[in-house]
């Protein structure tokens, strides 16, 4: 195995910045702080440019320009997905968000926030109701005897785990007596799920390290 370092300046820059970040493992130092601040600035800049071209220009400016250039009929003739001059309203609401920079007029931004909050509250409420409540309860109603001992025992364990875990989250009564015992069983099931979650989290974090080392070893140093 011999090293074939990349001739690409960009790869060397990426490797140097990676090592600056990793230097934090020894202790906090100026190289890490430089890389950290550069990362924050570049990320914010990238997000601004991305939203500018992909939403503000593509979904707002282009349709508005098209609505008023006279080639598509009346600017107020609306169809599904084609809102023409009516897009002036979200444009105005978006600009009103910048009133937060003026303390005396910051309250105006609430109108814009109200639209966002209303849309997402409505979407979330129905989405959670349909998929996380109705569908999950429906999926939980399963036969406790399936004809096979193995899957039947699993069905019992699943049902007991579900009911006791739900009872743990019932805080309108003190957890005494039967409710207390049931919620304690629920805690055991919850601990098992947290343990499984911890195991998967470990996998996820190590995967990220593997990816960075693959870049350093193979893309930067060219070790084959």
């Amino acid at each position, binding site marked *: 195995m011999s090293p074939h370092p990349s001739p690409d300046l*960009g790869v060397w*820059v990426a490797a140097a*910045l*990676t090592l600056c970040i990793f230097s934090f493992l020894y202790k906090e130092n100026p190289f890490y702080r430089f*890389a950290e*601040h*550069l990362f*924050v600035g*570049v990320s*914010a*800049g*990238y997000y601004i*440019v*991305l939203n500018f*071209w992909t*939403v*503000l220009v593509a*979904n*707002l400016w282009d349709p508005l320009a098209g609505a008023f250039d006279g080639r598509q009929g009346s600017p107020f003739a609306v169809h*599904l997905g084609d*809102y023409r001059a009516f897009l002036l*309203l*979200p444009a105005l609401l*978006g*600009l009103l968000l*910048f009133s937060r920079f003026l303390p005396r007029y910051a309250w105006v931004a*609430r109108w*814009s*926030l*109200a*639209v*966002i*909050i*209303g849309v997402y*509250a*409505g979407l*979330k*409420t129905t989405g*959670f109701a*349909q998929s*996380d*409540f109705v569908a999950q*309860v429906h999926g939980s109603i399963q036969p406790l005897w399936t004809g096979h001992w193995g899957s039947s025992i*699993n069905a019992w*364990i699943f049902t007991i*785990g*579900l009911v006791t*875990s*739900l009872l743990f989250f019932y805080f309108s009564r003190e957890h005494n007596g039967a409710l207390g015992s049931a919620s304690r069983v629920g805690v055991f099931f919850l601990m098992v799920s947290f*343990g*499984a979650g*911890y*195991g998967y989290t*470990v996998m996820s*974090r*190590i995967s*990220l*390290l593997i*990816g*960075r080392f693959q870049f350093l070893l193979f893309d930067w140093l060219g070790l084959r």
Partner: protein
Amino acid sequence: MKREIPLFVTAAVGLFMILSFFVPHQAVSVPADFLQQSAIIIVAFGIVLGGANLLRVNLEAVVRRQPGWTYKLVLIAGLVVTVALGLIEGRDFQAAGTRSTWIYDQVYSSMSSAMFALLAFFIASAAFRAFRIRTTEAALLAVAALIVMMGRVPLGGVLTAGLPHELRIETLAQWILDVPQNAANRAILIGAALGVMATGLRVILGIERSYLSGED
């Protein structure tokens, strides 16, 4: 009116969005579609606002020579250069060979990955120094974690290859995921769904007003 109008708007828009889930007629679907398009546009303005605010805060820190101001200068330089290049390069700023693409690939991408890669070291250190089994519940958590951790990698399968299939660690790990873990997670999902539905209705009906923070 500084609070009443936003509350009314939230209620009207929220109830209309809920209605649109059930009513497919054009009279409902077209305005609902428009509201969602509007939300997307306003959110995009919000992201630009966030960036502008970041610039303002850090410029202030540099001007006032607050501690660490030289690093904030680096932040500002990174932000301004990225935005300037992106705007100059136009719609094709993400095409291969552009300077914006170079910044994304070599600067943003590498540092984003490296930041998260640090977590692997911290999780090892925390496993050693902080993961303490003092109760039955903690023991259950630890046993489940150990079985799932080793069961989801090939080494676990190799170490238990001699055991019957039902006792191999990968089978145990899959069973934990399919049965007890699934049951508990479903309970969490259902509980969270009830919470979200309640909070959503509270926000729409104007009972929950924390998003209107600030003085009138």
